[in-house]
């Protein structure tokens, strides 16, 4: 029986294993150095804040693995011998494989700052990172967070829940400036200030200074400002966790290089998820996409290939979501930080400054290209149908209620949004009633 060995028990590795089991009887082993069982990395913040226990973040009960004949091995892989098809583990043993899947994830970026390896200087990616945060929290009065992105804002929320003050250094002039357009960035910046986050825009870290015990005591910014703190969060993105592959045969760039079938240059070795980098992305997106959803979709695809149904990775429309303190964010299609030349936009913001809808469309044919929404939930299927079905702005504005996914009784803003649209375009359109037949594509 063919033995598939998967390194990494995150969403990418686990999805691959589950789908191989659905499709075949192959022997499956998942190796992880991090935890015994798969857990949801995205929920680490909720453990710290007391919303959940670690147990609650496991999507499957512990009996699941044995029942589905998926072997779990807690070990660290030291190196791979692709000729003998063998792994060397840190417990001194070796493990033979027929097919090897690298789903080893990533680690927080460190850009060579002096003092970046001091105690209480870290990112938030692994379970061990969470344990370290717990360890340092009781003796932390102020934390400095470097890098204004999703994990940074999570860390800020975590510390504030324990009454620890947070200073947030952001390189751009607004929050998540590399991804969010200016107005959305400002909206979230305002919300962070409402939660008493001490935001410093256009500020970068220069140096981290240690106390006599080797723990951070303050940092110095590039404009030579000194900020006292007992913890530094490094949340300026992540990069593939591939140090253990450095001297091997597997081709690497920033990540493990793969083709559209998620195959590496080495036979019977595949890579996916955070650690995989496409030579050229099959649908023209970024070659390195480190989000939960792409890890899961790659896993479903790779399982097909491994089970003799060779399948290329073809992610559909881009989507993502997040939550910044109390404001939820969803995005469908492409809304770039800067409007492209061929694009036009429609932006509506509620007077409370916490809810907005941003639509980007093709300037010439008015077809929808992307949606950003803050504080309004939208229906994934409907948005996808609009974008891939190339619906025009007029159509979308009239059918906006079909896409509303907010809970029942929530205030709906479609009419207000339409008024602004009509004013801007000199049109006289009306919002149509929600229609289940359209929503579920019945008929």
């Amino acid at each position, binding site marked *: 029986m063919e033995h598939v060995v998967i390194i990494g028990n995150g*969403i990418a590795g686990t999805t691959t294993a589950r*789908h191989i089991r*659905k499709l075949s009887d192959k022997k499956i082993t998942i190796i992880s150095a991090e935890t015994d069982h798969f857990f*949801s990395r*995205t*929920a680490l913040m*909720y453990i710290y*804040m*007391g*919303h*959940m*226990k670690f147990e*609650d*973040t*496991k*999507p499957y*009960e512990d009996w699941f693995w044995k029942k589905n004949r998926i072997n779990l091995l807690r070990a660290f892989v030291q190196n791979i011998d692709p000729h003998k098809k063998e792994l060397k583990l840190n417990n001194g043993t070796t493990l033979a494989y027929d097919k090897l899947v690298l789903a080893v994830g990533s680690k927080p970026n460190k850009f060579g700052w002096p003092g970046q390896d001091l105690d209480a200087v870290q990112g938030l990616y692994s379970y061990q990172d969470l344990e370290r945060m717990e360890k340092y929290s009781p003796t932390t009065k102020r934390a400095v967070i470097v890098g204004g992105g999703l994990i940074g804002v999570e860390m800020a929320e975590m510390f504030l*829940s324990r009454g620890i003050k947070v200073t947030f250094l952001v390189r751009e002039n607004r929050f998540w400036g590399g991804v969010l357009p200016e107005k959305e960035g400002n909206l979230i910046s305002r*919300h962070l200030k*409402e*939660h008493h986050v001490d935001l410093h825009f256009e500020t970068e870290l220069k140096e981290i200074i240690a106390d006599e015990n080797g723990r951070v005591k303050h940092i110095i910014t590039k404009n030579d400002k000194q900020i006292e703190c007992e913890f530094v969060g490094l949340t300026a993105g992540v990069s593939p966790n591939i140090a253990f592959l450095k001297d091997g045969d597997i081709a690497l760039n920033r990540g493990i290089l793969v083709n559209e079938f998620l195959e590496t240059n080495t036979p019977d070795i595949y890579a996916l998820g955070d650690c995989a980098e496409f030579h050229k992305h099959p649908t023209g997106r970024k070659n390195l996409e480190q989000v*939960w*959803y792409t890890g*899961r*979709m790659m896993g*479903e*695809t790779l399982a*097909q290939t491994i089970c003799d149904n060779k*399948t*290329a*990775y*073809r*992610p*559909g*429309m881009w*989507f993502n*979501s*997040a*939550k910044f*303190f*109390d404001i*939820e964010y*969803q995005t469908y299609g492409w809304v770039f930080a800067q409007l492209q030349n061929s694009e036009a936009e429609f932006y509506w913001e509620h007077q409370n400054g916490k809810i907005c809808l941003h639509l980007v469309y093709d300037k010439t044919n008015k077809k929808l290209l992307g949606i950003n929404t803050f504080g309004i*939930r*939208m*229906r*994934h*299927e409907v948005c*996808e149908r609009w974008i891939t079905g190339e619906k025009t702005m007029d159509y979308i504005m009239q059918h906006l209620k079909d896409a509303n*996914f*907010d*809970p*029942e*009784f*929530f*205030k709906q803003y479609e009419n207000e949004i339409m008024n602004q649209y009509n004013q801007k375009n000199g049109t006289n359109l009306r919002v149509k009633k929600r229609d*289940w037949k359209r*929503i*579920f594509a*019945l008929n």
Partner: protein
Amino acid sequence: MKLIKNIGLLICITGFSFFIGSIFIGEYHLSQEKFDNWINNKGIKSEIFIADASNQLVGKTFSAFALSSKLIELAEKSSEIHQTNIQKWQTEGGQDEKINKEWSKVIWIDWSKVHKDFTFPLLQSTINSSAKNNQWLAFFLTFGLAIIGGLLYIIPDFILLGPAGIKNNKLFQHSATNRGWGGMLVAAFFIIFYFLLYFFPDFLINPILATNPISLALSGNSASQWFMYGLIYCSVMTVFAVKMYVKYRHNLYQVIRTTVVWFFQIAFAFLIPEMLVRFNQPWYDFKNAWPLNYTFFFDWNINSLLDSGNLGLFMLVWGILLTLVVIPVMVYFLGKRWYCSWVCGCGGLAETLGDPYRHLSDKSLKAWKFERYIIHLVLVFATVMTGATLYTYFSGATTVLGVQTTSLQSWYGFWIGSIFAGVIGTGFYPIMGNRVWCRFGCPLAAYLGLVQKIKSRFRITTNGGQCISCGNCSTYCEMGIDVRSYAQKGQNIVRSSCVGCGVCSAVCPRGVLKLENAPDIDRVNDNPILIGKEKITLNS
């Protein structure tokens, strides 16, 4: 703000201390007149008991515990003598009349009934305590302080907890909500309270007296233990409804649902029935449907309704229609939530007082399997018991297939009605979550669930591929549904146990879940395709 909160806590604890302390005060002076009245009302025929009690108790003063246990001790002693006599005469033979007479003198002692039926009325009539003489003051010191303190403790959170949003910080780190000592203390208090209420009301006479002025004002009758319980229920729901408003003020579904379920408790389960009594009509809760209301078809209830003219007849017909027509039709259009989390009193308490404990429900597959057996078993048992009751009512036969109908009824009343629904159902909030009864025991929930599962427009829609498997939805599902296991597959949630509280949708950080009523074709998508990749379709 923090100071106000702490003062509130102190006042609230003071109120509870008065409540608990009142159990131990007061003295019971047994006058000849009151004793004779009681003997007559109870129809006690044992001359041995009457003589003993007259000699040893009448004219003396006792504490509640002493008087109650003394009465039971004497009753037991007399019954023993009567039963010895019966045995003796039976062996001798031929003295049937004498034996029958002796049987009628035996006082049957069952611990679960003797206090509430035998000693409680006597103690109630003989009490002399400061609470009895200052009932409004007693009300203020117990209920008043607990309510005022509770509100002062809760309302500052509006400011203290920051901008509106999900407020679950530290739930698993605080002993009151993580099965720590705080939670255990509350559980012990609840469990003891329910035991006293159901089985030992003779120790709750002062708290009952504290609610007397309100009862007199509403129905004109003096307060019973059930009136006190109703008032406690309403007060607790009111205070904790305010907590819900503070906690979920950003979520209009929760605000409206809380208001409606609170209204149905106050109006339909408390004020309207008490008003009906004032106008000499039967005490009737128009929303309490069979089989949750398992005494609906008991002979005393049917007779009382039939004796109450047109209104009584209407109540009888409405009660039957509610179960047979209104419930299934409403569940088809709205899901079982219209009852369980919008109307029902048990649900009302669970959604208010119980909200801080919702994450303690067991989400394991094992718990789900157990739940499916036991809740349907209770439904079957409730149906069988009611069937026997109706058979007895119409045929006059006291036994069905060799089983006494009354013993079926009292078995159900004790184990299901009192122990399961009350002691475990509410007492175990801080241990097993706030829906123990609704999830494992309620026969009405089982019935509503069957309809919801088989034919309904209700479902929780999963939003495409946005789930990140974080587990908030499952953790905060009070019914122990593993919501995530569906959401992460892109599958809609159609489960008979879902009461539609809407909290999974509220706590989801990615906007994945929405409760909705929509056309019921394709409601259960068993073959979901996660959106986001082209070409492959998979069975998840």
